[in-house]
């Protein structure tokens, strides 16, 4: 239970009176508040600063240091206060957590100091409220990164035993690790630059010779350029092969963008080598040279900023796509309009709509080359509209892209923001586990509940009983409330696995082997009274216990008959045949030690079977899993095992 609202538990319990007239079964007894402690003030002395609060405030969170008995270790007898030798400033937010139920992270606090305080006081950081959680996580991440950076620097200093391959890979990835790597880094950079400059200079006209026109340098100094090209490609090939060799995962390396760029950069050369002989495809070969420009992208290994730019463009793809789409729409619209507007005029350059595209693009981007101009009045009007709207259409998505770019750029800087989604899920999962702990706590306590009540029935360990009572009174009250709800609806809470199994079993139960008339009686006995009996039936040798003043518990037999009458009345307790097995499991849980009639699985269609059933229920409640087929049978009762036997063991795990 979220004990933050423990103060409202009395209200919830009072509201349970609304269920009473609806319920058909008698309610369980309320746990008594043995400790008649008045609410008192507790003094918490944290390094000299005194904080005071109510005891019940601290009791709200019993799984923390201040809420549990762990604080007794810090109790100072002379001054009658709890002394903690911790930071009083950080303690403020911790105490506020108890008061308000929300944990805040003060921004001026150091993150590791705060974490230590939380750990000391037993509070999990995931409880930090949403208002402060982002800040907390960011600071924690920065701290982690700083620690990791420190570690990495240390790591670089001392080299563990890496084999040659790993050393090489590290050298490729971080050029600053060794001088060799640095040399390699600069050499490749130099050659990339040389290669790019060569490609550019190749096409510059180099002054005329005896021929008529200017030749580009490439054709003039063919051999020189070829040698240069060969040298560059050699270097690139060697580099690529070395990287391929050193990569820890070759397949992943070959799929990466950088390696594809490498391959595309050097392939044209080799293709050109192969194809020099064939003159027909030399045209295609020339176009392949275009791909040599991709060598410039190899610089991105040398520049972090370039990498980030490439990445952000990739992630801005949707915005860019939108820009392109809206531009295309506008271009088509205006091209069509201009074409039809200029159709009338003679010698119009607007020969077709695709031909008008060029005009539209040039106008919309406000370039205005002037090679195509409208001549008709309508064309001029639409042309001006086109240029005005061009400004708008281009100007509008661009700030979106710009802001997106800056957002993604900053996001990329702290790349863990994306990982925060996973962390958020983990955080929510942890809180959910803590919360569902309350749901499962009830089921768990049902399992243990009978043991506790056995204890109190025996009346032997008074102190132990008091102890267990006082420490989780709120828990027991809450569980009593849930138990009343169970009684009202005549159904029990189970956990998910049990429910699945039950569903499976009901699905499997198809054979109608029992008469429906039994089911109603049996079920009523099973549900209403089964649980009740196993909780409140006294031990056979004990007389009506005086220590346990259950006002509703007069005498076993009387009560049973009362219950029988009670539960036989509502015809609402009908169940299907398939449920009969499950019901009988319930009653089969009522076992006794040694030789008495245990189960009430009735297979005889005679109502008198109820009375031996009643006797059977006299047995003291035992929570141990009842022996499945080994149920001693009364003379008139047969036990139906079937698949229900396997159910028995499982269901009793409740």
């Amino acid at each position: 239970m979220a004990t933050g609202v423990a103060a409202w538990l009395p209200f919830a319990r009072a509201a349970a009176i609304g269920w009473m007239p609806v319920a058909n079964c008698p309610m369980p007894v309320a746990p008594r508040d043995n400790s008649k402690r008045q609410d008192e003030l507790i003094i918490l002395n944290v390094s000299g600063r005194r904080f005071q609060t109510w005891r019940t405030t601290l009791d709200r969170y019993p799984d923390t240091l201040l809420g549990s008995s762990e604080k007794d270790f810090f109790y100072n007898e002379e001054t009658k206060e709890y002394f903690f030798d911790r930071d009083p400033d950080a303690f403020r937010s911790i105490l506020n957590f108890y008061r308000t139920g929300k944990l805040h992270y003060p921004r001026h606090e150091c993150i590791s100091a705060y974490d230590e305080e939380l750990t000391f006081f037993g509070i999990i950081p995931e409880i930090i409220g949403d208002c402060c959680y982002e800040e907390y996580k960011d600071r924690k991440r920065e701290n982690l990164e700083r620690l990791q950076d420190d570690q990495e620097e240390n790591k670089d200093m001392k080299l563990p035993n890496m084999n040659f391959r790993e050393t090489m890979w590290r050298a490729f990835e971080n050029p600053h690790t060794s001088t060799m790597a640095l040399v390699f880094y600069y050499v490749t950079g130099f050659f990339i630059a040389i290669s790019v400059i060569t490609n550019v200079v190749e096409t510059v006209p180099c002054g005329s010779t005896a021929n008529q026109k200017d030749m580009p340098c490439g054709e003039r100094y063919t051999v020189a350029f070829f040698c240069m090209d060969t040298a560059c490609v050699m270097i690139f090939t060697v580099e690529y092969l070395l990287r391929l060799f050193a990569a820890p995962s070759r397949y992943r390396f070959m799929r990466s963008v950088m390696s594809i760029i490498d391959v595309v950069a050097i392939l044209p050369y080799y293709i050109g080598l192969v194809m020099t002989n064939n003159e027909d495809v030399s045209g295609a070969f020339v176009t392949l040279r275009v791909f040599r420009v991709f060598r410039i992208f190899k610089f991105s290994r040398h520049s972090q900023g370039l990498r980030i730019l490439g990445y952000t463009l990739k992630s801005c793809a949707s915005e860019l796509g939108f820009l392109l789409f809206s531009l295309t729409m506008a271009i088509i619209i205006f091209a069509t309009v201009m074409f039809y507007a200029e159709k009338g005029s003679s010698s119009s350059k607007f020969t077709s709509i695709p031909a008008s595209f060029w005009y539209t693009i040039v106008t919309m981007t406000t370039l205005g080359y002037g090679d195509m101009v409208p001549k008709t009045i309508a064309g001029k009007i639409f042309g001006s509209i086109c240029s005005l709207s061009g400004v708008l259409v281009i100007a509008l998505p661009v700030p979106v892209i710009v802001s997106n770019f800056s957002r993604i750029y900053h996001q990329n800087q702290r790349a863990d923001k994306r990982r925060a989604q996973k962390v958020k899920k983990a955080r929510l999962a942890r809180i959910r586990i803590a919360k569902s702990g309350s749901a499962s706590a009830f089921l768990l306590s049902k399992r243990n509940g009978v043991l506790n009540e056995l204890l109190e029935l025996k009346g032997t360990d008074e102190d132990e009983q008091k102890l267990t009572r006082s420490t989780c009174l709120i828990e027991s009250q809450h569980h009593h409330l849930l138990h009343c709800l169970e009684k009202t609806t005549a159904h029990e809470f189970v956990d998910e696995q049990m429910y699945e199994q039950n569903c499976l079993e009901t699905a499997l139960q198809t054979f109608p082997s029992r008469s429906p008339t039994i089911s109603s009686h049996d079920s009523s006995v099973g549900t209403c009274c089964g649980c009740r009996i196993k909780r409140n039936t006294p031990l056979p040798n004990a007389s009506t216990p005086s220590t346990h003043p259950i006002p509703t518990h007069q005498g076993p037999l009387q009560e049973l008959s009362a219950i029988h009458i009670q539960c036989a009345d509502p015809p609402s307790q009908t169940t299907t045949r398939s449920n009969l097995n499950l019901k009988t499991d319930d009653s089969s849980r009522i076992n006794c030690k040694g030789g008495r009639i245990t189960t009430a699985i009735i297979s005889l269609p005679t109502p008198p079977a109820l009375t031996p059933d009643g006797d059977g229920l006299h047995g003291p409640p035992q929570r141990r899993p009842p022996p499945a087929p080994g149920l001693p049978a009364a003379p008139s009762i047969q036990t139906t095992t079937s698949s229900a036997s396997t159910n028995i063991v499982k269901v009793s795990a409740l």
Partner: protein
Amino acid sequence: MGAVVGTLTMQTKQRRPSRDKADDDLEMTMVCHRPEGLDQLEAQTNFSKRELQVLYRGFKNECPSGVVNEETFKQIYSQFFPHGDASTYAHYLFNAFDAAHSGSIKFEDFVTALSILLRGTVTEKLQWTFNLYDINRDGYINKEEMTDIVRAIYDMMGKYTYPVLKTDAPKQHVDAFFQKMDKNRDGVVTLDEFILSCQEDENIMRSLQLFENVI
């Protein structure tokens, strides 16, 4: 360039109007309510001063503004029933607590209802329960109202129950209820019928006394 600057300023301006609206909403909800004096409440209810103090501290802690609206009420109530959905029943409870139908529960309403439930006579408790069941406050409980209430109670159980919850379980429960309560078989239960039938039922009588030691 001007267009870019223009659009950028437009972006920043956009944010402000929405923030103003949020501020306005916030102001409207910061209504504070103070309860009557402690002496008056002590006279009106069956609680002692100390008990009222404890109750008020818990109340004010969860609702610093001094009133509980239905959302908060549902949230608080749902925390006690993590298995199922307690919001429908909480809605009916809210209406029962909110005697003046003002849409929010003040501390006086809260404490008055608690006083009846925990310290009242049997008749008062049964009257309160009748009021809870009578959703439209017409003085009669008919089958639809009762079915709604019972279904709300069953909703609190959640999905994972043993035995598996049938869809007609609430209806059967309601039929049983009417069988017991509706003396003259006219299809509705009046207050007198209700009180009479409950007084005849020992279980109900016993369970009404169950929560007397809650505070």
